[in-house]
């Protein structure tokens, strides 16, 4: 029998976790639950649902900070920011649809807990880089806080970093403070079609090294083009897509100069088409088709040293084969024929010093093969010690991040 507990405030959250620890009952910890199938399956009869901890507590646009309940929906946060011409610069992706959740369901706490960032990662950093402070309840059923409400702070250990990407295994966030920034303004994209993978990656690196400050660098193979919003040419070969954002004049200026610098055939996307395409890239939308979602077709996300991407793509496409999409240093990869291809993918990623995460797969595969990359024994020991310090009874998402 599945029990759902949905605290409405921090004291109810404390009570809930106290109940779990007293009973020795583990819980699946969710924001709104859109990504609950991200991670190893958690064997729990209780779901601790945190989307009742809502509300904007403080928002001072000219301080560049926002504080809200961790269960506040990302949409609420983003629409408030939009009213003030600001945004979360790390471009939080909406990965729920990869798991069959409706779009736009995520909470801000969930995005931070999974440390998710979009295509602008290359320029603006990840969710971790914008996470300034929090209140949370650890597996000890104790409320604690860390960080602060200001943009610059080194008081004590940076526990925001620890909780970003901890997938609810250390503490349940109740309130978060994030850095907000002026909205990027206009968007434009330079498309360089008909390239080999190696050429396209080379162009993206050249763009990244340039002084023109691109905010999105993607390599789109021809098979993926039909799965993206319109505007991309359906040529043979890959498209190197380079995004610029900022005031209109500056975007146009940089598009032209980048085109001249890189040479060869090119096209440009205007503001509206650019936004749609990059939203789809950020959300990995080409992998969210109904059949793949239904079957939980294995989908990997590889974080790579950017310059190694071409060789990784080359070797993975050689064997085991499959569909891919490169977004910054992040490679999305769905192996051919519904296999997880864990051995090949992990070996290939380790070869270049990257990290591979099995973002989607059937529960049995996630349970058997693991989701997150293997770490060295020394790191595993520290991680286990951190976990037993924060959640000694093992009640918060036990097993989700590893054995």
């Amino acid at each position, binding site marked *: 029998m599945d*029990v759902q*507990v949905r605290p409405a405030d921090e004291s109810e959250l404390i*009570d*809930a976790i*106290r*109940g779990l*620890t*007293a009973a020795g*009952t583990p819980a699946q910890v969710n924001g709104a639950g859109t990504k609950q199938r991200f991670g190893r399956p958690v064997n729990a009869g209780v779901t601790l649902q945190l989307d009742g901890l809502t509300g904007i507590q403080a928002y001072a*646009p*000219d301080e*560049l900070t926002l504080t809200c309940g961790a269960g506040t929906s990302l949409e609420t946060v983003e629409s408030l920011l939009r009213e003030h*011409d600001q945004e979360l610069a790390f471009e939080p992706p909406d990965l729920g649809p990869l798991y069959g959740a409706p779009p736009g369901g995520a909470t801000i706490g969930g995005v931070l807990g999974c440390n998710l*960032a979009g295509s602008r990662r290359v320029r603006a*950093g990840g969710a*971790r880089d914008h996470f300034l402070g929090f209140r949370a309840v650890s597996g000890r*059923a*104790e*409320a*604690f806080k*860390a960080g*602060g409400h*200001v*943009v610059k*702070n*080194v*008081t*004590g*250990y*940076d*526990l*925001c*970093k*620890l909780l*970003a990407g901890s997938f609810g295994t250390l503490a349940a966030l109740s309130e978060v403070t994030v850095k907000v*920034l*002026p909205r990027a303004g206009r968007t434009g994209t330079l498309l360089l079609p008909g390239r080999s993978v190696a050429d396209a990656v080379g162009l993206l*690196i050249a763009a990244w*090294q*340039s*002084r*023109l400050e691109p905010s999105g660098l993607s390599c789109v193979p021809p098979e993926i083009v039909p799965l993206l919003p319109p505007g991309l040419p359906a040529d043979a070969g890959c498209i190197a897509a380079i995004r610029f954002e*900022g005031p209109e*004049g500056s975007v146009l*200026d940089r598009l032209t100069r980048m085109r001249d610098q890189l040479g060869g055939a090119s096209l440009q996307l205007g503001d509206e088409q650019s936004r749609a395409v990059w939203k789809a890239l950020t959300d990995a939308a080409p992998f969210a088709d109904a059949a793949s979602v239904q079957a939980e077709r294995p989908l990997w996300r590889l974080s790579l*040293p950017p*310059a*190694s991407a071409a060789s990784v793509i080359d070797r993975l496409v050689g064997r085991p084969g499959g569909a891919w999409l490169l977004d910054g240093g992040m490679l999305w990869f769905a192996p051919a024929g519904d296999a997880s291809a864990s051995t090949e993918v992990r070996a290939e990623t380790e070869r270049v*010093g990257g*990290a591979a*995460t099995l973002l989607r797969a059937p529960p049995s595969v996630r349970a058997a093969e693991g989701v997150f990359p293997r770490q060295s024994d*020394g*790191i595993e*020991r520290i*991680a286990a*010690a*951190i976990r037993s*310090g924060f959640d000694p*009874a093992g009640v918060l998402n036990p097993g989700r991040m*590893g054995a």
Partner: protein
Amino acid sequence: MRMPEPDAAVIAARAELVAALRAIVPGEGVIEEERELLAYETDGLTAYRELPMLVVLPETTEQVAAVLKLCHGRGVKIVPRGAGTGLSGGALPLRDGVTLGLGRFNRILEIDYDNLCVVTQPGVTNLAITRAVEDQGFYYAPDPSSQIACSIGGNVAENSGGVHCLKYGVTTNNITGVEVVTMAGDVLRIGGRHADPAGYDLLGVITGSEGLLGVITEVTVKIRPKPECTRAALVGFPTIRAGATCVSRVISEGIIPAGMEMMDKFAIEAAEAFAHAGYPLDAESLLIVELDGTVSEVDDGMARVIAIARECDATHVRENADEAERERFWSGRKSAFPAMGRLSPDYICMDGTIPRGRLPDVLDGITALSRKHDLRVANVFHAGDGNLHPLILYDANDSDQLARAEAFGADILKLCVAEGGVLSGEHGIGVEKRDLMPTMFDDTDLKHQQRLKCAFDPDGLLNPGKMFPELHRCAELGKMHVHHGKLPFPHLPRF
């Protein structure tokens, strides 16, 4: 300054330890002569001094691991040390401790332009990284004022910032990997040349851990292409409030300057007398606003900044005509410290952050405190991100002045916290602000922080006496108090 009780048994076994250390680090790498130890007795916070029991200067990660393992086995405390420029006493030695200096880790290991990163040893100075890549048009963004001297390992340990961190972030936002040796001697390689490695973000927690979690033996930093265009404006205001309003307006209009620095009248006068930077002496507050990016973007942004400044009643507005003038604008700000050194035998540089909107009130508060403690103070200030650096002038030979300076500093930091800010924006807690931690964090908060420490260093041998006012034993912190009796959710399944 209250420090952990020295361990008499450790001190008694000093000679044996020296022999064992020499077997690991041969030659000059183990220092035991008092005359030589003196060079390590303090860091940038010179008010506190202590002679270390020994200093060891290893050259390789293997040596660091062996030294730590040895000391771990013998229960000997370790104080990591980079260049010793820290301003919160993080590298203050312990009488029964070994100071482990990373100065010999002074090589850049690899420059990888394709992945826009540099792999370096921790003893390399911050500026040396930029120097190594600037001929190719790149730089390392965080730029503490101490950048010619401070080590990149120390920057990581303190999560240091600089004048350009509003736009480009502090150290933690600009590194992707470290190699760290734990107190037990385990070598951990964390992160690499890619973003967001999965698993707990140990890179993120090592950064800013002030030498309490591990010894950093290698760092991978991100480098960036140098902006095409950099331009600065010098703006003087008739009041502090007008300057502060201008800062807020710039940001709320969507402009994120590369740097936005503010100085009060006393700081302006001192800096001008020292550096002849062309600062307006009739201004009550002065801003340096620097924009970078493409030429068209900087043109556009600068026009808007200047319009805003005029609307905020600026009395003096000057854009740099050439690169030499831009450097002159900065020369005053960057010499604020030595300028104070000419006016007073000693000064302490405080470091707190406030919500920027509170600036005028906080400065009024500091002025009142200056009267209360009867000491002069000059304010320089990373205005963009609300990071205050009041410089308190005193004479260390007068013990009453030192005590007043410390009390004044503590009062300023308490004021920052009371106004919604924090104890440190970039200099760290160290010993200086250690005892103020409870003004910001309660016991439960601090215990959770220390549980992180316990995961890395359960015996508390790495840099003890820093950051936490009270060290709980890890065994005690590990206990879990289960609350029996009435349960709030009686319907939960029980096993």
